[in-house]
């Protein structure tokens, strides 16, 4: 018998708008030493499935309508609250998505780590503080924290994202669970860190023989780590099977759609750039921020050098990809070009005019010609303005439309970005993430700009939506003859969309070149490492890639 057997699980949510079947008739099983990946887009019910097993859902509104979940013969859905607490502490552990918010910022990581040992629900297994400390240090070492003795007393903010996720993994493992549930454990991490964390999970699983349920929307990651795959959509299982059969022999349309949506390969559009006519010239740009941290106060350097001497040209008509990991300064560079972040040194020239010399009033006509698309479509729209107001604001403000022509122009804009005109009275919260990003794109192209800086415009979106938005962007670039700086941490997306790529690390551009040339022959070691770390949505290739690392 398998370690965990879930049979016909049904979880419903009672909402104001009626009953929502979040999980509807889902069955699966996981064995010790096996990895089951649950794949699906947001809202597919993949997280709800796992949280319902651990009684982590808020009830109400959640109601478990039926089914069984036998963990080692015991039904998780009907067991008592104290027993569930015991199981959660001992046998089943969870790693959450965001390592930044999953740790208590006021307690040292060591203290958080030994908590389950010294306050163990099972009285007989309570350990002394000293013993627990030794055990915790041992584990920190095992998950790859360097100098664990010294790091034991550090607080979460002193760790980077990847290190925090390692701490979270150590925390999950401290009671030697038999089942580990990983809810998008690497989604918030950079690609090179992601590779390390995945490797770590895999290694730990093999040495400890735990069962792993791996929730993810990233098929590349799944291809490398899973033995079995469950594809979910709208609360139901669309397809289940071993990894190879899902990836190579899918029988289901939805699975095929997911696989097809992965951005792969080179850009299909022709490069329209005019090499001799740079639209934007950036020379030796430096953007420093004051550093208020402890290190700076105790006589260290006083600035964080977000952008540290960057020179680049954006040619008229091209899509320039800007790649880098978090903290590389790529977003700050984008905002500095638009004069949204104050630059410390250097110059930005737009179409022959030096932007740094202009005062805020004088920049207004230039703002019309350069726009930005932001990452988070939930935060980038004013929640109290309707679509109509959002789209009409730039037009009216810059005098591009009057009260007579405004309706027509908004209609045109909505049409451009693929939204129905009838939706213009709606507020942002009534739209899905992809639709919101369309609104944000509509706002950016409203003033008919020449330059658009897109800062991770598809990172917050599901893979099928991501593909649609990328196509929309490409379409608009071509139709409106736009020049674009496309910032992303996702290398596959950048390859799919850009003519030219720049790689940024620690505030400087370390490599640049035509996309395909750079992909085929990266010069810098850092670029090579980045490219190697991209997971491939193909199990055989992915395994070969992992083995070659």
């Amino acid at each position, binding site marked *: 018998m398998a370690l965990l057997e879930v049979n016909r699980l049904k979880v419903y949510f009672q909402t*104001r708008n009626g009953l929502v079947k979040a999980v509807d008739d889902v069955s699966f099983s996981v064995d010790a030493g096996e990895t089951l990946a649950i794949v699906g887009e947001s809202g597919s019910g993949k997280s709800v499935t796992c949280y319902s097993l651990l009684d982590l859902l808020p009830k109400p509104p959640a109601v478990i309508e039926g089914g069984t979940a036998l963990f080692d013969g015991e039904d998780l859905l009907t067991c008592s609250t104290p027993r569930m607490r015991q199981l959660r502490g001992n046998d089943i552990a969870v790693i959450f998505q965001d390592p930044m918010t999953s740790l208590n910022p006021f307690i040292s990581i060591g203290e958080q780590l030994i908590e389950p040992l010294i306050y163990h629900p099972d009285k007989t297994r309570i350990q002394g503080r000293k013993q627990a400390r030794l055990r915790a240090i041992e584990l920190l070492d095992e998950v790859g924290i360097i100098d664990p003795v010294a790091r034991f007393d550090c607080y979460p903010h002193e760790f980077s994202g990847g290190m925090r996720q390692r701490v979270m993994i150590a925390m999950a493992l401290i009671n030697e669970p038999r089942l580990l549930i990983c809810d998008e454990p690497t989604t918030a991490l950079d690609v090179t860190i992601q590779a390390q964390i995945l490797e770590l999970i895999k290694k730990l699983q093999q040495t400890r023989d735990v069962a792993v349920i791996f929730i993810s929307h990233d098929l590349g990651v799944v291809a490398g780590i899973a033995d079995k795959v469950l594809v979910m959509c709208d609360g139901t299982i669309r397809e289940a099977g071993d990894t190879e059969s899902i990836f190579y022999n899918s029988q289901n349309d939805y699975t095929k759609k997911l696989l097809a949506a992965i951005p792969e390969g080179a850009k299909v559009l022709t490069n329209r750039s005019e090499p001799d006519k740079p639209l934007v010239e950036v020379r030796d740009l430096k953007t420093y921020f004051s550093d208020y941290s402890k290190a700076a106060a105790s006589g260290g350097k006083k600035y964080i050098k977000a952008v540290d001497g960057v020179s680049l040209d954006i040619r008229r008509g091209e899509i320039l990809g800007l790649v880098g990991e978090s903290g590389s300064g790529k977003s700050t560079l984008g905002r500095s070009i638009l004069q949204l972040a104050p630059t410390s040194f250097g110059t930005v020239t737009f179409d022959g005019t030096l932007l740094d010399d202009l005062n805020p009033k004088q920049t207004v006509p230039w*703002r019309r010609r350069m726009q930005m698309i932001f990452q988070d479509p939930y935060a980038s729209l004013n929640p109290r303005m309707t679509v109509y107001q959002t789209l009409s604001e730039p037009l009216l*403000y810059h005098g591009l439309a009057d009260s007579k022509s405004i309706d027509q122009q908004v209609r045109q804009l909505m049409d451009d970005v693929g939204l129905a005109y009838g939706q213009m009275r709606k507020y942002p919260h009534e739209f899905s993430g992809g639709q919101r990003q369309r609104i944000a794109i509509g706002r950016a192209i409203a003033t008919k700009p020449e330059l658009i800086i897109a800062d991770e415009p598809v990172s917050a979106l599901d893979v099928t939506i991501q593909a649609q938005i990328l196509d929309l962007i490409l379409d608009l670039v071509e139709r409106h003859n736009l020049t674009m700086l496309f910032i992303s941490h996702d290398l596959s997306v950048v390859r799919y969309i850009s003519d030219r790529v720049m790689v940024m690390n620690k505030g400087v551009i370390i490599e640049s070149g035509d996309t395909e040339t750079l992909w085929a022959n990266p010069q810098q070691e850092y670029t090579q490492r980045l490219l190697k770390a991209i997971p491939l949505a193909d199990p055989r290739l992915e395994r070969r890639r992992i083995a070659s690392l």
Partner: protein
Amino acid sequence: MAANAPTSTQVSAIPEQGTSLWQDAWIKLRKNRLALYGLAILVLLCLVSLATPWIAPYGYEEQNLGLGATAPSLQHWLGTDIFGRDMLTRIMYGGRVSLAVGFIATAVALVIGVLWGAIAGFTGGRVDALMMRIVDILYALPFMIFIVLLMVIFGRNIFLLFFAIGAVEWLTMARIVRSQVMSLRKQEFVEAAHSLGLSQWTIIRRHIIPNTLGPVIVYTTLTIPSVMLLEAFLSFLGLGIQPPQSSWGLLINYGVETMEEYPWLLIFPGIALSLTLFALNFLGDGLRDALDPRTSKD
């Protein structure tokens, strides 16, 4: 949610105009019965107050010492006070003062507080530091001394009273708004507004202030009653309005003294004040929901 369907009353052939936040809020408020009752009561109270000089059954200083304090009767519906003055009349006149103080002083606090807080929070840096230190200093200044000074310099004047109370109450409002704005100005939609080239003032007006409305409305509905009580306190000390004029706060204060012998002197002004507070709270709650587009329209 049938968000696509046109709202029940207005099906038009012309493309729907983007309604403003306030129009939408009104549509939603009309569906909130409690809030409507609250609004109706407030409107009624205001109308009665405005018309008081013409509809009051007696004069507010008409004494009848021979009568003294009497319980409610047909001649005096709400009874009379120890000087034989008609309570209904005095409550009606008192309402004029209390409502005026409540609304005008709160409006003063609201306007100054929201603008001050929004500008400080949005600008940040030195301007913010300077503006908030001014708030701190005013906070630290003993309120009574401030009012006494004003009274001494400008003489006793009801409009000065409005101003003085408003000038004190805006401090907390400014702080609340500032903290809201500080988190708002880092949001991407504000940055998007910057990149559209909107002026600072336009951004504050269109993107910042509407998003602070929730807490502002709640705090406003809390401020109005506290302002009314503050007026009573000042009047009690002889700094506000003087007998024979009345206000609800003053009536309640005198009512408390004679509570055991003549309970109606406390009960009726008490009811008038409570009714106003209830109405305000229901209306405030309804407004907050109505102004938040995230609450459903249906």
